[in-house]
């Protein structure tokens, strides 16, 4: 084997390997790697594939529970939902590619996360997308938003999986690094889950799906570095998606999975054929030998290096039981997809690649995986800001403030986005986008509740509180539709981990997530880390997005946020102290981003949520909504706008400044519409849950004592108008 003569530390550095990492690779091989081997080491040891900066911290998260069938480490997490059914889900980022080429970057993000889910034997049943863009005033924001939304829709609509929820926020910290996090949820049988552990030396290794081209080479390496001034020059590293092929691949794989042909299966995502073959062999403690001449290629003259590093989309690698190739080939040919036996499992423990009859690479898989670098990077917590005294904030007309809040980029209706997504296909969408959580039917009356959440401004001011709050808000959103929160998937989006203050944000967020997961029995079953979201030294706000999944046993006893009946009472659950630090009110009305975010009282959070869920399941809650950005008055307005009904508020309590009561963002709170407030208040008191009657549903306006009224229809029109108006400006 030759070709190693040109490989040196400088070339390795160009592949993203630092000197010690290159030396480690040389030591593992006992010689200098050739170019193909260098490429394999560089992608496997990239931040994106190796999690080398985050691994030691992610290990501290709770990942098990009575319902958890499979936690992190596989393509997606698997949770038992009873009746022999399992929910399979994961979230994944496609941030860097989406900034460079928004349509394809976002589209292939959806494609990749779909594959992670159906690889495990699950039929994808829902997609959610958590999006963060730069300031609305930034010249690229409109273009990026339009492209990302069209890309998500273009892919999800065509494969026929409903896109049912997510978030979209704007902040100047994302001007140079937008976030596109896609979550996919699938449904499988608990006895038909497929894993990626190779087994059985001699078993055939099979390639299926689309052909391999030169697209996406080095995508994983790109996602592991900061953007400099040359971001647009990286466009060739962005992959191109074909949702039609993905649709065929879903159907073909699920058809093959009805039988017992598959020993192991892994999608070719980041680092393509390299990571899929190495991961399968590594998990099985075995080797794999591949004949690259058998790989279906889109272009001629591709080298081993290019074939192994291509990130062409819609491809899968499988280990089959011997003798099942004919039946498997029949299924893939029916769906007009490529099918090729490209190698076999070995007991050598080596990844051996051949091309044109010669050995192109020979790497021991064990060390490549187990000796991958792991760093405990230096970190430091920033000093927290002082708390904000609400009495020091001036009093203003609250209804005028409300109008400004619901027409802000943060709270304006995102209908313009989700109407471009087919959120109804498959015919099981019970609660559509725009509420606390989407609800998707999975049985006659059984359903899943799905939501994504994060409040980055909290995370920046106090990563630990922010991490805990993201988990708590996710749990609360699922609870607010009547679901029992089961488990979550996390997408950790941060800046450059080599900077101690950024690493400190990561460490703090993980601590907060861990505390909340433990307190709420809400384990992490899958996730993704995206670091280096930083351009010319400017990092994004720390954004640990939580994708939550909850179970609704009987969806006739689920609810949504729309007010439904004049004369019903509105009850506020939870303690209000008027916390304005880091609040949306402070940012949008006072123009200040200051103070500490609200503390999540995890004991109270759980107690309040369990009470609310009990009330919904007992049929006492006609509507329910959690309190989040903008606090009480925004939550009331959202319920009013969703239901097209007014509310008359009772006199406000005298012990808090008016704006603190109406706009404070204290955690652990909900609003419930009920026909029988007396019974609910007594029940709350018996369980030690703070509860208070705050007003009555009725009329066509939101009416505040001593502060006038505002038309619900006018408020809704303004809330709906912002985003279409913004996007229509050239």
């Amino acid at each position, binding site marked *: 084997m030759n070709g190693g003569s040109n490989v040196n530390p400088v070339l390795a550095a160009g592949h993203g390997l630092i000197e010690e990492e290159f030396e480690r690779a040389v030591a593992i091989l006992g010689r200098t790697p050739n170019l193909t081997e260098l490429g394999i080491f560089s992608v496997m040891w990239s931040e994106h594939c190796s999690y080398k900066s985050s691994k030691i911290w992610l290990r501290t998260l709770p990942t098990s529970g009575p319902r958890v069938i499979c936690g992190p480490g596989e393509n997606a997490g698997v949770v038992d939902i009873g009746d022999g059914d399992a929910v399979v889900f994961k979230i994944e980022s496609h941030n860097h590619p989406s900034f460079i080429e928004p349509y394809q970057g976002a589209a292939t993000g959806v494609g990749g996360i779909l594959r992670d889910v159906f690889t495990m034997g699950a039929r994808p049943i829902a997609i959610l997308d958590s999006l963060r863009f730069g300031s609305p005033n930034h010249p690229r924001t409109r273009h990026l938003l339009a492209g990302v939304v069209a890309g998500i829709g273009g892919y999800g609509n065509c494969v*026929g999986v409903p896109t049912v929820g997510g978030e979209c926020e704007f902040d100047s910290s994302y001007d140079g690094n937008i976030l596109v996090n896609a979550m996919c949820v699938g449904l499988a049988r608990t006895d038909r889950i497929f894993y990626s552990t190779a087994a059985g030396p001699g078993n055939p290794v099979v390639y299926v799906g689309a052909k391999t081209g030169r697209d996406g080479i080095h995508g994983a390496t790109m996602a592991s570095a900061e953007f400099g001034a040359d971001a647009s020059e990286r466009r060739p590293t962005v992959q191109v998606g074909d949702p*039609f092929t993905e649709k065929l691949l879903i159907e073909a794989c699920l058809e093959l999975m009805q039988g017992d042909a598959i020993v192991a299966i892994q999608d070719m995502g980041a680092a393509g054929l390299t990571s899929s073959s190495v991961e399968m062999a590594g998990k099985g403690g075995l080797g794999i030998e591949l004949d690259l001449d058998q790989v279906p290629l889109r272009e001629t003259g591709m080298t081993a290096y290019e074939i192994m590093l291509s990130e062409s989309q819609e491809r899968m690698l499988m280990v089959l039981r011997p003798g099942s190739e004919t039946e498997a080939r029949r299924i893939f040919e029916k769906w007009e997809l490529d099918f090729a036996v490209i190698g076999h499992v070995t007991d050598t423990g080596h990844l051996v690649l051949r091309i044109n009859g010669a050995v192109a690479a020979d790497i021991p898989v064990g060390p490549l995986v187990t000796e991958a670098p792991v760093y405990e990077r230096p970190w430091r917590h920033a000093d927290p800001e002082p708390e904000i005294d609400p009495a020091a904030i001036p009093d203003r007309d609250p209804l005028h403030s409300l109008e400004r809040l619901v027409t802000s980029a943060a709270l304006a209706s995102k209908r313009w986005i989700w109407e471009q997504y087919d959120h109804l296909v498959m015919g099981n969408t019970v609660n559509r986008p725009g509420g606390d959580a989407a609800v998707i039917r999975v049985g006659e009356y059984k359903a899943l509740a799905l939501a994504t959440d994060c409040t980055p401004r909290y995370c920046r001011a106090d990563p630990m509180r922010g991490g805990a709050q993201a988990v708590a808000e996710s749990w609360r959103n699922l609870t607010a539709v009547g679901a029992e929160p089961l488990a979550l998937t996390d997408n950790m989006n941060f800046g450059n981990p080599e900077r101690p203050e950024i690493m400190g944000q990561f460490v703090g967020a993980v601590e907060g997530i861990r505390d909340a997961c433990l307190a709420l029995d809400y384990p992490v079953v899958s996730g993704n880390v995206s670091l280096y979201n930083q351009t010319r030294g400017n990092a994004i706000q720390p954004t640990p997005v939580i994708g939550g999944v909850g179970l609704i046993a009987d969806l006739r006893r689920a609810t949504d946020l729309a007010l439904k009946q004049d004369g019903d009472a509105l009850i506020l659950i939870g303690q209000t102290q008027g916390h304005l630090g880091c609040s949306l009110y402070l940012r949008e009305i006072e123009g200040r981003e200051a103070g500490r975010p609200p503390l999540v009282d995890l004991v109270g959070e759980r107690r309040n949520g369990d009470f609310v869920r009990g009330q919904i399941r007992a049929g006492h809650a006609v509507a329910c909504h959690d309190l989040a950005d903008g606090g009480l008055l925004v939550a009331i307005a959202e319920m009013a706008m969703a239901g097209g009904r007014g509310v008359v508020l009772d006199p406000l309590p005298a012990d808090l400044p008016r704006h603190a009561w109406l706009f404070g963002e204290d955690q652990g709170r909900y609003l419930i519409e009920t026909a029988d407030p007396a019974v609910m208040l007594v029940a709350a008191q018996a369980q030690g849950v703070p509860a208070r009657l705050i007003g009555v549903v009725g009329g066509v306006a939101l009416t505040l004592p001593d502060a006038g009224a505002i038309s619900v229809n006018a408020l809704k029109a303004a809330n709906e108008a912002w985003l279409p108006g913004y996007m229509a400006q050239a």
Partner: protein
Amino acid sequence: MKAAVVIFPGSNRERDVCAALYRATGHEPVQVWHRDSTLPPADLIVLPGGFAYGDYLRCGAMAAHSPLMREVRAQADRGTPVLGICNGFQILTEAGMLPGALLPNRSLRFTCRDIHLRVENNQTIFTCGYDAGQTIGVPVAHHDGNYTADPDTLDRLEGEELIAFRYCGADGALSDEENFNGSAHAIAGILNNSRTVLGLMPHPENATDPLLGGTDGQALFTGLVGALK
């Protein structure tokens, strides 16, 4: 009523329409793979929504030339009713089984939302479950639903009452705003001359379950069952 649902590679609303047919008939329709050369005997042929062949070239263009479509056309010529929904409507126009064409929505964006339809002609097997002029609420989910045809064709569709549904407001009134995709004459669905082929862009099959936002689409399927039994 026995229904056959044709599955092209890229069809994706076959589950939805099969569920609606099941609710209306009490039994599962037959799903027919596009490469099959024959259709099983059926009282109704359905072309479901989706992106047949990825909608590459033009929406429905490649599916229109699928071998099975020759069989669909032959059956239709013999009077077997054909229902094309969304992509199915696009395929029927590309195959020349219905006149006109479906252009990109005037917003140039995919649109998924509830809309209102006015039943323009209830004297057909597809619409007999509705009152004439009734307004119903059903969802749409398409990028290319902007119906167009030459003026003579539009005159003929109007004159011969071949327009089955039009986009309208909740009160049944027509307006430019409610005609959200810009279709000529606000056309949402049309019939062939013999009124045995219906193509429509909206999804009545996604409005057949009270838990999922309404049942206004149900009467299309129950009406068919009544008419074809």
